[in-house]
């Protein structure tokens, strides 16, 4: 199997600034004399194959966690945990489903577990304005920043007001790689049920979105 060089994530979103303020960059202890990794450098993957998997799927996995949990810091932790879990269970992946679907399954279970914990229900979210501002800090045009910030906040507010099932279906259908059958498998229902619920979810989203203006 040939391997491509693994590049770091796009610098479109500079969450590094936000993260530096609130959460340590890495849990792992760097080797003596090595120091913390530079945010702009390439990560050193011990498994190049897994590095490719991360590069290909981390963006949709992070986005699902972000909008499902509603908190950038928790989404980052969840994405980390999902990929670590996937690495540990890589031997169990038999290729019956697509890698993306398999990762989504881990993500959905992980996020649902997080939402169900007492801690999650009672903790005060730190998704304050400073975090959202940090999320769009790298965009050059300030008007564009305003637009991105408003759009993200309104989407988050709208999704949070929807039933969990609608929220999940809308986030999954936004991924063009997923078929209705795969969405049905992920949410444990028939493809027809997915279609029907998506129709209602879209209507609910649009109504809520207009109210959030």
């Amino acid at each position, binding site marked *: 199997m040939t391997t491509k060089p693994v590049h770091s994530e796009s610098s479109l979103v500079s969450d590094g600034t936000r993260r530096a303020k609130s959460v340590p960059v890495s849990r792992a202890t760097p080797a003596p004399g090595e120091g913390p990794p530079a945010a702009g450098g390439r990560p050193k993957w011990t498994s190049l194959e897994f*590095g490719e998997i991360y590069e290909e799927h981390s963006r949709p996995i992070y986005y699902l966690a972000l909008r499902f949990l509603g908190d950038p810091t928790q989404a980052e932790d969840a994405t980390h945990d999902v990929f670590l879990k996937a690495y540990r269970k890589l031997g169990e992946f038999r290729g019956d489903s697509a890698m993306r679907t398999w990762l989504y399954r881990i993500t959905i279970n992980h996020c649902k577990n997080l939402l169900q914990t007492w801690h999650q229900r009672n903790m005060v979210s730190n998704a304050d304005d400073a975090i959202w501002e940090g999320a769009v800090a790298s965009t050059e045009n300030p*008007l564009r920043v305003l*637009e991105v910030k408003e759009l993200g906040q309104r989407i988050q507010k709208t999704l949070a007001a929807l039933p969990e099932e609608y929220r999940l279906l809308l986030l999954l259908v936004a991924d063009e790689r997923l078929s209705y059958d795969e969405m049905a498998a992920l949410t444990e229902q028939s493809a027809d049920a997915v279609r029907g619920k998506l129709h209602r979810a879209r209507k609910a989203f649009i109504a809520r979105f207009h109210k959030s203006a």
Partner: protein
Amino acid sequence: MEPKPSKLRHEQKQETIGQTGAQETARAFSSVEEMLREDAATNGPPPALAHRVADSIASEPKPARSWWQRIFSRRPANP
């Protein structure tokens, strides 16, 4: 009294930016999916996360391969 040329230019520039802003904020999406895709495109994982995952994986033992992977990865014997 007419404004100085430099001030006039400044005001014209301000007006142009305002118009651009109105165009951008008034952007319409044809579907919920399109809006969410636009949102996803501007909300990628932070670059430091890749390092964090790579570091965590580096400290993990190599995952065991399943029986079918072990069988299919065997090289055929030389004739």
